[in-house]
């Protein structure tokens, strides 16, 4: 319990009377690569919004590395070491790919308030930025305007930006959404490789069950305002409740 | 930015720039005397502008027909300051530097006048004020190139206090536009009234933005004070708006308003103007009985098919003084002309007048009367029982003028 990197305790949230979550609790262990699944509208993205501070829960605690982060601003939570990539591509479109990553590194180093030196002047930051672009396969596109990249590359950049924060916990919201099948598997490989190499705890939302069951160590199922099930993939795919509620009964 | 792009842009700018320089340096010719007129063409000063322009045009036409001044023709260059001091000052600079005007005639608004007189001083060009009449122009903001041929705020404010002190009212409310003219006018009224009638009580002074034409929120406040009479320092479109709006509230019956009832204002208010209000004018043609005036009025009416307003008369008078001085100085340059203007006597439409050397103020007083319908003029009311309050009775004594002038920075 205490060594969990993230614990959700008795979390509830409603919007204008419509309850999204009722008393959800779970813990994420350090180093795990896990998936959150659930039907559309089950509140998966809302859960991420709550964890990262974009929304404030009605009740409950969110404990990140032993600290209750409920009520903290997103940028403070980020600085504790939690990063997030988005379902809809969410980058800085009129900036170059390099700038996208550099500004993130600058922010992580708390160097935003430097008014004098041009940001291009720090070779250290540049080197680190290129390392990250390398790892998401965008190094050759560093000076392109990010908004005109192909969709798949934008999502890679989104992940790259999150990585540049050097997070301890990385939340990925449908990293493969809107991708072609080939891109999709490339991205999955990338995620898995990053996880292997960087030893980051990763939690992702995904619809593609092949992916979910293919790479996750653990799967959590959100349905009907609650956490329906939690466990290793093989358990979940065999869980009768989950099949009924989400995967559909046998035809 | 790329080097090449910059060059093209730069070249473009330079071409346009030199073109402009060419245009503007061709603008001057040696045989004309250019007279820059900073006018308030739009807004509440608009009716006055037309009259001033008419008076100036008529004078210039006449003098040019008579061969001009020392063989040079006069030419009028007009700019619209829109009642805004910054625009007026910039235009004064443009008129002097770019249009090469030798003399300026001033705007209607005294705020613009205060701004333009500084520019005239900077470039040592004579500026004549025949409409804007801030007393400060002759005292704290005095500069030797400034001349005023209109009764100033001191003369008017104190003059009205003289007139009204003979009336029985004891409780006054004052209302005026919130800028130099309004403040000076009402302050001199207050101080003169306090001297002459210590029993008079000023209940309140209400300030209204210059140009504001909706008085709905001010009139109830005025009524709440229950004054016996109201002294209003409005002019032009603002005054006619005030009178039109105050009338249905019954304010004018309970507490008669006194103010500047010049001809343009009376024309603009037309039949909405109530009878029996005490007011004053600066140069009411119908009440000034000089031979020059008779000739002028006839010529004016023949030319424009309307009666000359105070503004036309004063503009015309100002030009008389200016050309007289040019003749006397035998020069058409400000530096020379200014030397003879102080103390100059001239034969104005209002009769013999002179310019006081100490503050460059002409001895022009006000004409006070009571509004009434007249069989001669159908479209507007005039003032009857007009009596003149001569400038000498109410203008600042020389000692005081000099004291105030020494205070300016």
């Amino acid at each position, binding site marked *: 319990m205490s060594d969990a990197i993230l614990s959700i305790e008795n979390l509830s949230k409603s919007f204008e009377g419509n309850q999204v979550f009722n008393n959800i609790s779970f813990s994420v262990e350090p180093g795990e690569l896990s998936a959150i699944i659930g039907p559309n509208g089950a509140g998966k993205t809302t859960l991420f919004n709550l964890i990262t501070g974009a929304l404030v829960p009605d009740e409950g605690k969110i404990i990140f590395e032993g600290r209750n982060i409920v009520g903290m601003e997103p940028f403070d939570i980020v600085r504790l070491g939690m990063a997030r990539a988005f379902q809809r591509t969410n980058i800085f479109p009129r900036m170059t790919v390099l700038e996208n990553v550099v500004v993130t590194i600058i922010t992580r180093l708390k160097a935003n308030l430097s008014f004098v030196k041009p940001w291009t002047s720090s070779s250290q930051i540049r080197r680190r930025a290129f390392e990250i672009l390398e790892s998401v396969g965008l190094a050759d596109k560093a000076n392109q305007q990010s908004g005109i990249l192909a969709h798949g590359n934008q999502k890679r950049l989104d992940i790259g930006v999150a990585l*540049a924060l050097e997070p301890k916990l990385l939340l990925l919201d449908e990293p493969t959404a809107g991708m072609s099948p080939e891109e999709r598997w490339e991205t999955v490989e990338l995620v898995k490789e990053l996880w292997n190499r960087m030893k980051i705890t990763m939690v992702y939302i995904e619809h593609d069950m092949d992916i979910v069951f293919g790479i996750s160590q653990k799967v959590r199922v959100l349905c009907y305002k609650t956490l329906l099930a939690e466990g290793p993939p093989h358990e979940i795919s065999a869980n009768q409740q989950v099949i009924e509620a989400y995967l559909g009964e046998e035809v | *930015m790329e080097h090449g792009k910059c060059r093209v842009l730069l070249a473009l700018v330079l071409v346009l720039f030199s073109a402009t320089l060419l245009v503007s340096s061709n603008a001057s010719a040696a045989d004309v005397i250019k007279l820059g007129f900073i006018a308030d063409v739009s807004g509440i000063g608009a009716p006055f502008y037309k009259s001033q322009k008419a008076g100036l045009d008529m004078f210039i036409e006449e003098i040019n027909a008579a061969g001009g001044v020392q063989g040079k023709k006069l030419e009028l260059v007009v700019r619209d300051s829109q009642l805004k001091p910054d625009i007026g*000052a910039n235009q004064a600079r443009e008129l002097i530097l770019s249009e090469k005007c030798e003399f300026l005639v001033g705007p209607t608004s005294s705020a613009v006048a205060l701004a333009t007189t500084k520019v005239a001083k900077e470039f040592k060009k004579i500026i004549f004020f025949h409409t804007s009449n801030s007393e400060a122009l002759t005292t704290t903001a005095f500069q030797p190139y400034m001349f005023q041929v209109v009764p100033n705020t001191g003369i008017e404010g104190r003059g009205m206090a003289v007139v009204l002190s003979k009336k029985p009212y004891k409780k006054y409310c004052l209302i005026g536009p919130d800028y130099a003219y309004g403040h000076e006018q009402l302050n001199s009224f207050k101080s003169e009234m306090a001297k002459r009638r210590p029993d008079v009580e000023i209940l309140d002074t209400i300030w209204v933005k210059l140009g504001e034409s909706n008085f709905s929120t001010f009139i109830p406040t005025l009524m709440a004070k229950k004054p016996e009479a109201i002294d209003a320092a409005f002019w032009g479109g603002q005054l006619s708006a005030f009178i039109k709006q105050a009338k249905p509230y019954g304010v004018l019956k309970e507490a008669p308003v006194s103010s500047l009832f010049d001809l343009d204002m009376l024309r603009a208010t037309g039949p909405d103007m109530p009878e029996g209000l005490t007011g004053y004018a600066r140069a009411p043609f119908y009440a000034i009985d000089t031979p020059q005036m008779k000739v002028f009025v006839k010529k004016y009416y023949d030319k424009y098919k309307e009666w000359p307003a105070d503004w036309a008369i004063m503009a015309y008078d100002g030009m008389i003084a200016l050309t007289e001085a040019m003749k006397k100085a035998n020069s058409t340059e400000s530096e020379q002309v200014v030397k003879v203007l102080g103390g100059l006597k001239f034969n104005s439409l209002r009769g013999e007048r002179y310019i006081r050397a100490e503050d460059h103020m002409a001895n022009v007083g006000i004409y006070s009367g009571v509004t009434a319908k007249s069989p001669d003029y159908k479209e507007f009311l005039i003032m009857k029982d007009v009596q003149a309050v001569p400038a000498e009775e109410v203008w600042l004594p020389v000692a005081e003028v000099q004291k105030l002038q020494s205070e300016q920075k």
Partner: protein
Amino acid sequence: MDDMTSSSRAGWISGITVTVVLFVLPVFLGQLGKTGEYWIWVSTEMIIMALFAMSLNLILGFGGMVSFGHAAFFGVGAYTVALLMKKADFPLYLALTAAPLVAAITAAIVGWFCVRLLGLYFSILTLAFGQLLFMIVFQWYTFTGGDDGLHGVPRPEILGPINYYWLCLILFVICFLIIRMIVNSSFGLSIKTIRENMERAKFIGINVRRYQLLNFIIAGAFAGLAGGMLCELNRFAQTEFLHWSKSAEPILASLVGGIYSLAGPAIGSSILIFLKIFLQQVHRSMVEVWAIVLGVLLLVVVLFAPQGLVGLYQNIFKKSQS
């Protein structure tokens, strides 16, 4: 990387060329007598208004915040100079130092409230605060002279038209370099990041409000300096300086010049002032319809070239290259 340094070198060369031309300009203009003197005056005004436009563009183009109250800081700067020099006999250099400081303090107070709001609401709140300050200056007759403004701001003996032009040019070049430095710094990059995607900026750890506020204050300070400089040029301060229609001027200038470039607003501002005088010189009646000309120009920019002249130029340039 190479093309970055080469383009920045080209930038330096053209920048220095323009600066040198601007420095020697009054010497030639001085030969033209009064006309020249007039154009020196106009050029000084252009330089000052260019600085004002650039200051706004720090928040508009780089920060993505549309402020309709920027003239308030411009006006506060102007009144600071006027009041200090007229009523407290401050020397010009001290007054010009105080102007941006006072403007920055005002911007800090106003900005603290404004950066809490987004988009349109931000714009309207800046408008409300701007008009509030305008009204205070307007109504405080005894202190600010109300509608009359404050006239007769002293001018040091040595500052003839040419010298004042040079002073303004030097100040402008310094400010240009500072603004350029800020835009290219880590802070500048953070500000652009917020403009691009405020939500995401929060999720990379940027304290959005704080940086927006800082940017707002910096922009306010430069606007205050520009206001102070204009006050000294005109030798008066006037309520119109704070009015919202004055706030619109640098927005129009930036848009015409191009809001995503550093020099765009300065170029746009100069072009607008120049165009106005040019049209007036071509024909007197043009000044009557100046607002119509400006309006039509603005419509054209909004509908056909929202990136402004610089953007348009870059597009054409890129196309002709490829």
